[in-house]
């Protein structure tokens, strides 16, 4: 009887203690994760065909993404993808990938 009462309390304490140790997910990481099935985890792209995103200058990434979105830059697929994001989201992506290690 007493034991049954004790264990949930104990688990609750453990959970609370553990929760405090889980860090925040970095800003932009969730949104950037939508790009990286093609462009590699955190923009560390495998191979030489698809553009590597990690560590590119922020302005270059931002300009490219906007040019894809408007159609100024021709593409097979990126215009169709870029049109799914707001301009603010494209800026967040540019900021995130430019801050990643090459």
């Amino acid at each position, binding site marked *: 009887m007493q034991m049954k009462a*004790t264990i949930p309390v104990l688990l609750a304490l453990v959970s609370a203690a*553990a929760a405090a140790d889980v*860090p925040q*997910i970095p800003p932009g990481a969730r949104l950037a994760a939508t790009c990286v099935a093609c462009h590699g985890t955190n923009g560390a792209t495998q191979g030489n065909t698809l553009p590597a995103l990690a560590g590119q200058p922020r302005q270059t990434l931002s300009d490219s993404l906007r040019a894809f979105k408007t159609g100024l830059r021709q593409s097979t697929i990126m215009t169709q993808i870029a049109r799914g994001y707001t301009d603010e989201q494209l800026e967040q992506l540019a900021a995130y990938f430019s801050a990643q290690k090459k």
Partner: protein
Amino acid sequence: MKRRQFIQAAGAGVVLASTVGCATVSGSAKPQVVVVGGGYGGATAAKYIRMWSGGAVDVTLIEPNPKFISCPLSNLVLGGSRMLADLTMGYDDLTRKHGIRLLQDAVKFIDASQRTVLLASGATLKYDRLIVSPGVDFIWDQLPGMQREGAQDSVLHAWKAGPQTLALRAQLQAMPDGGVFAMTIPPAPYRCPPGPYERASQIAFYFSQAKPRSKVLILDANEDVVSKGPLFKRIWKERYKDIIEYRPGFNTADVDARTRTAMSEIGDQVKADVLNVIPPQRAGAIAVQSGLANANGRWCAVDFLTFESTAVKNIHVLGDAIMTAPLMPKSAHMANQHAKVCAAAVVDLLAGRTPEARPMLTNTCYSFVCDKDVIHVASVHAYDADKKTLLVVPGSGGVSAGPSALEGEYAMNWARNIWADTLS
């Protein structure tokens, strides 16, 4: 008294951990996530929870197969331009680089009230959050003839990449020139909407090179090509006019494996030299057994903010097994994206934070129409708070203008990158 009980409880935790080969004693203090299934959904979720929690969450991944074999690109094995070995990878990096505890085992039973998972080996794991990514299983009882002894050894599905892929390739190689390959397609939804049409293209490509008098007969339960329809039909007309015959509205009701005959629900019979039956599908068996398949007993409905089951608390479901949102395909790329929304939400929930209010995901599906040329379909999806589902962002997405070798390059590099994103 209380003190002794505390020690017993703690001791039980250590015993539990040791039975599954847990080396870290401190592990028991961290939140525990157990992931069932090491495919595109499960392996990605396991990796991203470790990454995004900074190692503060323990993750155990349970997968019965010793290696990861990619379904995407496996139609190229049938077409003869790739080997299955090219699509086969190890799980070692998940342990080595990300500290995931990998168990080559199967789940026998999920006890949601105790939050435990019983494994085939006899071990029991405790979880704070469980992620189930079981893929699909086949609804064989809709095809009585396929349940006869030996039927499934001679009439193959090859809809899970592995030994069946190689066996179907061998049947195609053994078929004489002038023979008929017939493939049945189940009613949507099924895994990989463009997959059957890519397969037909691949086998037509193989025949055009090696057995030019042979035929590919597509027996489709659907009224039209389910994905990239205008593109596939144009390509078949331009490239495989004398090889591919497309027959829509052929809903396969039974199969005679001995005579390699498919029978439609209105009694049409088609006999082939090689018969490939893609059976009707539902969520993987463990999801169905665990009460997660609450949509028609076939698919698992989830809260798209977290991918938590709407049927069972603290259990999340990913990938092909879920009841999809509108225009969301059952694809590897989609499973990868489910996994990340889920991983972020699980980390947030374990930390006591509110998950992201407007998650997004993308999809790209590349289909090879010969050994080099490829067409794609793409889309971007965002959470709609009013409708409580993921919807295609208006204006986003689309298909290729036509097949190209450039997109063939992109497709191969997509594969390299999603494999790395999933496994290393």
